[in-house]
């Protein structure tokens, strides 16, 4: 378990998907949840950085859990996910500030993700509003962007949720680069994904 967290946490950091202390990972384990410690460095996770607490109810370990514990719990309770990756991919965050949804223009992004909803909320960190809205979206989409904050991806295992995160950032980099090259770029091939 620790090795999985260390591997994915390290990759997220090295890929620039998180800054030194940002982001969090969790897995569901029956009625328990294992989540990264509040303020831990995902690139350097150790034993004390994995916190186990209840999926539906608190115990004393709650005081060490990630600030996003409430959102992770809500996702597990509202979806069939067994793993959640929350990251702060910069291109995706940048694009989320301009768009209400992100439509991939590259083939792999379109194939894998089709469309990424962008969710707006007044409070975006440890937010009750996100707890309410995210699970519904994640029932339909593998990954959702919270405007100006970051991504929440789900999977059956950490690696799967990591893949959607990595793909999202690639999608957004391609959109950014393409728009940089040709400001009014629009690809009719991707229009259909608006209805995804």
């Amino acid at each position, binding site marked *: 378990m620790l090795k999985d967290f260390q591997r994915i946490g390290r990759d997220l950091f090295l890929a620039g998907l998180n800054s030194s202390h940002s982001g969090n990972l969790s897995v569901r384990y029956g009625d328990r949840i294992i989540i990264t410690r*509040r*303020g831990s460095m995902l690139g350097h996770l150790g034993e004390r950085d994995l916190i186990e607490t209840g999926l539906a109810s608190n115990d004393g370990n709650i005081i060490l859990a990630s600030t996003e514990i409430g959102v992770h719990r809500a996702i597990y309770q509202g979806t069939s996910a067994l793993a959640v990756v929350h990251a702060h991919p910069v291109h995706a965050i940048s694009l989320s500030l301009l768009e209400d949804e992100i439509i991939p223009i590259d083939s792999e992004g379109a194939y894998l993700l089709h469309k990424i909803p962008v969710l707006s909320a007044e409070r975006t960190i440890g937010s009750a509003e996100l707890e309410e809205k995210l699970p519904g979206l994640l029932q339909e989409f593998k990954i959702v962007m919270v405007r100006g904050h970051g991504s929440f991806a789900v999977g059956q295992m950490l690696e799967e949720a990591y893949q959607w995160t990595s793909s999202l950032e690639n999608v957004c980099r391609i959109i950014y680069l393409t728009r940089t090259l040709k400001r009014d770029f629009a690809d009719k091939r991707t229009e259909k994904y608006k209805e995804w």
Partner: protein
Amino acid sequence: MGLFGWTGQALRVNLSSGTITKESLAQKDLTDWIGGRGLGAWIVAREVPAGCDPLGKDNKLVFAPGPLTGTGVPGAGRFSASAKSPLTGTIFDSNAGGTWGVRLKRSGYDALIIEGEATAPVYLTIFDGRAELHEAGDVWHSDTLDTNKKLKDKFGGDISVSCIGPAGENLVKFASIMNDNSRALGRGGLGAVMGKKKLKAIAVRGSQKVAIANQEKLDFFIYEADKWIRANPITSQGLPEFGTPVLVNLFNELGVFPARNFQDSVFPGAGKISGEAIARTITTGRRGCYHCPVQCARLVKTRNGVFKGPEYESIWALGPECGIGDLETIVEANHMCNRLGLDTITTGVTIGCAMELQEKGLLDTGLKFGDAPGLLQAIKQIAYREDAGDLLAEGSRSLAGKCGASGYAMQVKGLELPAYDPRGLQGMGLGLATSNRGGCHLRAYMVGPEALGVPKMVDRFSTGGKAGLTITQQNISAAIDSLIVCRFINLAVTEEYFARILSAVTGVDYHPQDLHRTGERIWNLERLYNLRSGLDFSFDTLPPRLLEEPIREGPSSGRKVELAQMLTEYYRFRSWDEYGVPSAAKIKELGLEGFSC
């Protein structure tokens, strides 16, 4: 120019002469020392001779809210009391929540200075600024709950009462001052100072609104701070759901939850007295201080009734420290301490010390580890100074010293240690050893970085860098204690927010670095006072058990506090000499020239 945040007024009550006077506080003193602990230290250091007997006429008791008190800032419902402590001989402050501080502030005062001694018991009323002394014949000898009730029956439910119980009247060296029934100015025996002055209670009522310099900015900063309070699982979930006992399992699992007078560092029955167990079995409701969203206080129900508390430290001191794991006994013992007006930590640790002395054949009180009825009886005996209680009423340092076994007293500078074994938390060890008021965890609150990851998690077994970290924590804690804001809120909201909040409230331009500097000034003033009181560097140490005996089992086994190296570094960092005396340059830099020793 009018003042914002502060009222600019102090009330001075001379119990010897019965005179009551209002006086203005200098604006520079307020901006330099802020309020609460800082203002209290400033007044005590100037007015109370360092060499005086803490239970003599020259000692003074200073109550002080802070500029944020009563403003609606989360966690700012607190106030502090300062004096020279009869337990430690140090300058001492203790702070409490509840509503008393808010009402004192709204009555128009930044400070209440009690001096002299009454010839017969009295109590003081301060109603919307108007103060009066009354004969206390009808409440003297009453416990704290009855005193509170009698005064509320007499003056109305919209007052708050701070009072002492029988322990304070009987000059128990660790008597507390209680307000709102279960809120304690617990540590250091300030209740005995009040008792010696024959001041039974202070009832306050206040309706004056606190003037705010920039309400719009304040609302914005409160909104931003509230985001953090609601997002942080400590303040949004752990404390609201389990209260401070949420720490029981955490520290037991780290192997730093002391038991049987620090002979053990893991308590096998911890799960049964944990926050989770309390929430599951006996909690009936939550309570909080004025304007606090955390609501960390509990109402619990046992076969003996419904009570407030107990808090983490009290559970430990009246439980595992005495080898007791029965929750109902702990709740009852805690309630007895509150009614009688005793500090729960010192009470438990002193009884734990007596139990070990009995075990070692050095004292014959009949008290044994695990003896629940003996614990309850001892608490009563201490409060009334009956039988062995008279010996225990002086605290563990005196008790063990009289038995020729000083090493068994788990104290620093006379103040009994809290519920953390510093052998598995090196920075905590340094914080306790250097604390200006003795064995107190809150002066540096190294629990934050060494166990809770606030502001960041550090290696708890390492000594490297702990001196600087401890100093930073001590300085900022002194400033937070002066605002005066609850330490738990500070786990979610940093000084960067509080500097802005303080600026919005007072109209004075504060920056985070100003709070650090103010904290450093307070710390050095307290240090200089203690040095003048005769407490030199030799008091900056820990009980021999923590320095020489490694933890025997559990996740911290084999550890002891490596104090010497950290202490040398600490003095250097503070710009103190090898004897722990602040340098002339540091004294000048902090504007403390009049207090050098």
